[in-house]
């Protein structure tokens, strides 16, 4: 796979433009490698983010030919179209510089959704016995392996259109906790995701599910939240 590739990279902050670079193609080359090549050989000031380089940290997500992806695990041959690649920062987040987005809103919403464990025990209590095939454990497991890469958040137009919307990843996390029998914070959590901008803002576009690199299904998690909040509301356990 010899030859050259024309790569357009976003340069600048929220205001900026795409700049073209010619990059040699290699047999084993990921999108992250392309970006690295440009930084090392064309423009030393190119900014981007990565850490683990194997799809565990979710730091390297960018928009590649219009689609958010983890760039360290995306082979160029899989995404190149007519010898071209267009790479920008993640959508729906402020841009710090070039290809690096500011992830703070994403994590702030994760917290707003009460995306953190609320303990019911301490380290001096025995570890809870939980049957691996119990329904709640299975539901929690299905959604737990999120690497908070922000790909789903960036692919969701409801996030773009509704500034209050917590987004698929935060809600997916809330759903895993809701199924965690050890958790003691579920009333607050249900209330937090039942307000304006909570789970009910989701229109089931399913872009989150289609793009998640770990093949998680936030749409299903959010549907679960919609049911549980509705039940809780009807029983008078939460107020909107």
């Amino acid at each position, binding site marked *: 796979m010899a030859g050259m590739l024309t790569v357009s990279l976003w340069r600048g902050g929220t205001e900026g433009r795409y700049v073209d670079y010619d990059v040699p193609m290699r047999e084993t080359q990921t999108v992250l490698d392309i970006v690295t090549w440009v930084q090392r050989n064309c423009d030393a000031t190119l900014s981007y983010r990565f850490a683990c380089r194997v799809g565990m940290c979710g730091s390297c997500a960018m928009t590649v030919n219009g689609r958010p992806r983890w760039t360290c695990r995306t082979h160029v041959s899989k995404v190149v179209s007519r010898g071209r690649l267009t790479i920008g920062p993640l959508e729906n987040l402020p841009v710090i510089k070039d290809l690096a987005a500011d992830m703070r809103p994403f994590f702030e919403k994760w917290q707003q959704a009460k995306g953190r464990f609320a303990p019911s025990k301490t380290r001096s209590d025995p570890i809870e016995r939980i049957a691996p095939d119990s329904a709640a454990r299975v539901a929690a497991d299905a959604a737990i392996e999120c690497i908070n890469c922000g790909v789903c958040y960036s692919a969701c137009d*409801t996030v773009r*259109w*509704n500034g209050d919307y917590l987004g698929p990843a935060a809600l997916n996390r809330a759903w895993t906790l809701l199924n965690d029998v050890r958790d003691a914070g579920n009333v607050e959590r249900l209330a937090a995701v*039942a*307000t*304006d901008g*909570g789970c*009910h*803002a989701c229109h089931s576009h399913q872009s989150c599910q289609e793009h998640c690199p770990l093949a998680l299904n936030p749409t299903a998690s959010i549907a679960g939240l*919609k049911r549980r*909040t*509705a039940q809780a*509301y*009807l029983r008078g356990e*939460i107020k*909107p």
Partner: protein
Amino acid sequence: MNVRLYIWQRATAALMVPLLLVHIAVIFYATRKGLSASDILARTRGSVSWTLFYGVFVAAVSVHASIGLRTVLTEWSPLGQRTRDIAVVLFGLLLALLGFRAVVAVVLP
């Protein structure tokens, strides 16, 4: 949208499903038979069932559509929350008003 609006919107949607199925059937029936205005009115006037049927529909659709509109305005318009809410409440009232007027017109003997 919060959980209360959600429940109202989904509940009214679910309620409308059977109503609309019947309504569509009625449309087919009326056109197939080529019913005239007097034919129609003869069937509806004074009927408690039709009054209830279309009354419930109008109530449901007013609630459903105005909540739906609220969502669309939230996402697609620059309106502030207050203006948005006033606008959709007015829309809902208008729809209900016109709707009930139509029901009255069609079923009042």
